[in-house]
């Protein structure tokens, strides 16, 4: 491509790049800076003070614990269901593929509308009694959120998984059939290892989506203050936005970003390792 044309394309691409830098990159760097400054009018370098304050805050700890638990259980549940449904969908005949769309549809629907049904189902005296069961540690308070998360996100996982499954060469399955492998063995020993990179990506994507549960939580509980067991990181951050406590917010955001980055990094390292064996 000649130089003039290249310059034209660079110029056309500039608005998007400039906006991205202005709203995401540059202020992110500044927010990292905030995390190391002391609060109040006179700014001074505070070292790790803000981080310590956040880490010692009991609500941050509660939020972190709840978020980690929600992500762990939510991702495991949505991925298991997506895998089972994908195996099922792969075996269906072509003209029944509209069923797949039923699983994908929830992904695009507005949460506020859907919440009306969730409230109608879970807003009963019987269910209220369940949430008071101490032995379950507030599990029933969070259960509606788990169901919303799974309902909404299983579709995108299914799309990615079935796309990967249909790329497995037919010959591999034919060879397995000749060797007399049972469907269960084929699934576990052939399909799963062959789609493992996609599986990992789906895991990461589901994890990131599980962090977005705030919208559902806010609309379901009707406020920023859900029951203790459903108090997540974003509730914590929202409350601090209302207090305009930037130092604390920045420190929380930096810690959280680092945590997520590390989690994804280790997931990839782990998959590289297990791929070599």
């Amino acid at each position, binding site marked *: *491509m*000649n130089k003039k*044309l290249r310059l*034209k*394309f660079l110029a*056309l*691409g500039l608005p*998007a790049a400039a*906006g*991205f830098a*202005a*709203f*995401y*990159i*540059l202020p*992110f760097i*500044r*927010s990292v800076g905030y995390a190391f400054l002391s609060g109040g009018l006179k700014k001074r370098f505070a070292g790790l003070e803000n981080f310590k304050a956040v880490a010692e805050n009991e609500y941050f700890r509660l939020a972190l614990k709840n978020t980690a638990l929600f992500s762990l259980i939510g991702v495991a549940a949505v991925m298991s269901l997506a895998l089972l449904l994908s195996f*099922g969908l792969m*075996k*269906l*005949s072509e003209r*029944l593929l509209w*069923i797949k769309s*039923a*699983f*994908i*549809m929830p992904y*695009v*629907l*507005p*949460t*506020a*509308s*859907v919440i*009306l*049904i*969730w409230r*109608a189902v879970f807003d009963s005296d019987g269910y209220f009694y369940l949430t008071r069961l101490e032995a379950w540690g507030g599990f029933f308070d969070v259960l509606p959120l788990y169901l919303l998360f799974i*309902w909404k996100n299983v579709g*995108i996982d299914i799309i*990615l998984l079935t796309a990967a499954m249909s790329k497995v060469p037919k010959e591999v399955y034919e060879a397995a059939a000749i060797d007399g492998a049972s469907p269960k063995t084929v699934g576990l020993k052939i399909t799963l290892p062959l789609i493992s990179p*996609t599986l990992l*990506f789906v895991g*990461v994507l589901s994890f*990131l989506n599980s*962090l977005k549960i705030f*919208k559902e939580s*806010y*609309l379901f509980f009707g406020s*920023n203050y859900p029951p203790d067991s459903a108090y997540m*990181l*974003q509730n914590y*951050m*929202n409350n601090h*936005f209302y207090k305009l406590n930037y130092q604390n917010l920045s420190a929380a*955001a930096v810690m959280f*970003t680092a945590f*997520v980055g590390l989690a*994804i990094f280790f997931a990839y390292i782990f998959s590289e390792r297990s791929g070599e064996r």
Partner: protein
Amino acid sequence: MKKRLLTALMTSLGVFFFLPVASLAIKSLTFGKSLSLVQYWELFTVDHAYFKYFWNSALYAFVITSASIIISLPLGFLFAKIKFRGAKALFFIYIAVMLLPFQATLLPNYIRLRDLGFLNTPLALTLPMIFSPFAVFLTRQFMTSVPDELIDYAQLETSSALKIMRCAVLPQIKPAISALAVLIFCESWNIVEQALIFSMDNPEIYPLSVKLAELPEDVASAGGAVYMFPALMLFLIFRKPLETSMESYKL
């Protein structure tokens, strides 16, 4: 026999997933215990400020979708087809930010909006999403599939960058772009967090998603159904290209 069992099982699961939508539709068509359109009649004739927020949502979704796609197309093309120094590193930053959880990008967005004095204005609810990396990422994914020869050939015909985009590149990826538009529309139709934080002191400009819960009980289902309708229709119309383009989420 086994196959029929599987078919039956999958069909019933599919129906089960559809149940929330169906029950909202049914609830919206009842009043008291009988079937009627009273809810809709009330929603459309009595002023609940419903449509004020409905049009807020429509405006944000329309502006975000069109603006983000128009500005993302050339940048996606740059990343997909033009070699320039630092391209790889730059695209990596895009992916990294795209993967960042909301909790991490909200604060940078907020800082910029505050400095520009845009908080509590409609700009606060649109600008960050217009520049969100998602559209650039997906357009780039689509454009890698456009054959190089086609672009080379187009260059012989014209030296206009816009013409190359319009005549050589876009026709190749039209279904994918329409699917992307639907995805962005539905996402911006559903904003909640941005409104609560970027427009803390000005509930007048809230989108319907935050205000729907304030609708009186006896018209709530109709309000929810009308709000869901555009997203549902877009999904049904663009089902096929949507499903194909969601496959390109894969990094």
